[in-house]
């Protein structure tokens, strides 16, 4: 399919004096899996939050699935949000709800499914992430990796066209990192999703992406095929992929 599912043009965002995004432009073609690299605090989360309307940029344009996000009314924005999935860095599971309730919450609220259909969808989503046995557990009873999986199951349960991942593997050990990354890759293929993942984890990026950009000081410094970027002779990239990424991901 031709066309871009996401088009971001000249995005600017500042908090008071602090300029976080300074003219970021990104296109994501339908079916593409984009990884956005950047050190901690470069504005990766801010970028994702602007895309879903959690933050309002100072300037620029964001188009998702043909809709201009910044000009939508809240109602229209919510309509669009129903077709988006967002995996938060902390998984953001609702503490007061069981795993089952966490997953059925968006279904009950936004769609007109019968209880039977909801149960089936919940079970299927949990089965996909290998956590069907945890269906009646509370979030506090789950490990970090399990929470991420439940968060993943919750965001894919509505079968979104576009998935956004905020550091899907940060804070996880290398083995879990690989497991989660492979799970993300497989789900994306299976559900034919387009995705944007922000991360500073090279392992995760290599598993889930075909295309990468590097965000630095509010701008996109590099874009291209991930392998090319990692093999580049450019001093900045060399430094970025050798030291920081690994230190940040696994703690030195």
């Amino acid at each position: 399919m031709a066309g871009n599912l996401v088009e971001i043009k000249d995005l600017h965002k500042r908090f008071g004096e602090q300029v976080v995004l300074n003219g970021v432009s990104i296109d994501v073609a339908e079916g593409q899996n984009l990884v956005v690299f950047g050190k901690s605090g470069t504005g990766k989360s801010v970028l994702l939050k602007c895309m879903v309307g959690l933050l309002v940029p100072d300037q620029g344009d964001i188009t998702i699935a043909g809709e201009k996000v910044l000009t939508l009314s809240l109602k229209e924005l919510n309509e669009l949000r129903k077709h988006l999935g967002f995996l938060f860095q902390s998984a953001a599971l609702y503490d007061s709800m069981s795993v089952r309730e966490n997953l059925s919450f968006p279904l009950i609220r936004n769609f007109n499914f019968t209880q039977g259909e909801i149960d089936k969808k919940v079970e299927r989503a949990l089965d996909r992430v290998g956590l069907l046995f945890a269906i009646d557990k509370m979030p506090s009873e789950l490990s970090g990796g399990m929470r991420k999986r439940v968060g993943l199951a919750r965001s894919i349960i509505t079968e979104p066209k576009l998935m956004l991942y905020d550091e899907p593997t940060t804070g996880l050990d290398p083995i879990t990192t690989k497991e989660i990354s492979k799970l993300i890759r497989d789900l994306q293929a299976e559900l034919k999703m387009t995705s944007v993942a922000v991360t500073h984890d090279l392992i995760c990026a290599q598993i889930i992406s075909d295309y990468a950009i590097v965000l630095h000081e509010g701008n996109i410094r590099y874009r291209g095929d991930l392998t090319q970027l990692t093999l580049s002779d450019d001093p900045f990239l060399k430094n970025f992929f050798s030291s920081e990424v690994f230190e940040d991901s696994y703690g030195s």
Partner: protein
Amino acid sequence: MQKKSSLEINKAKLLNFFSQIGGMTEFNILFLKNVFKPPYEIGEISKHMYELGVKTFPIVSITGIIIGLVLTLQSQPIMAKFGAEFYLPYTVTLSVVRELGPVITALIFAGRVSSGIGAELGSMRVTEQIDAMEVSAINPFRYLVVTRIIATSIILPILTIYVDALAIIGGWFGSYLTSNTTWDLYYSQVIEVLKFGDIIPGVGKTIVFGYIVGLVGSYMGYFADKGTEGVGKASTNSVVVASLLIIIFDMILVKITLLLWPVT
């Protein structure tokens, strides 16, 4: 419109007390805009009411008895000195129903509930649960805040009536200890003095106090700063601000009450 995202209003609003009042006023308007729109979340509201009731029931029960008892024990010698011991049930009942019952219950409620709501919503903010709701096209304000404010506004008056009743019983117990008053006599005196004009404003103002507790706790939690200190701060600030506002509004409401229902 989504022009003012919830994440952004917050930082500046926490800068000083007056901007906090401004923020709370804005929050208040947002509540009024949302409260009459369906879905009404009856399930959530009942759940909160039940939890709030269970959480505060033991402490207000003890307090209720003790207010009446202590008030009687303190006043009895003074009243006796002036030969007015006979009026003890009247003064105790009126003090309790008009003022002490509502205010003390509200302050306890603020300490217990406002901090709880502040911490609960604060941790939901910090762990991005509120963002997650918003991204799932669910209005977190309506689901989390409106339901809590409604619950606190309903449950506090109920608790207050209960505390008033216990305090009157406590008052009798005090009278019994000091002057051997029988329940029947005490009760008949209470009934004689107690008018709707005392009960309605006393209980009525606790709707306002309950509203304050829910609003302040929700506001502090909803706009909590990132990080774990943010949650603690939200919780503490909730109690301080809610208690202060309760006392200020009590003064205002007493003034209004005395105009509308003069003591006869």
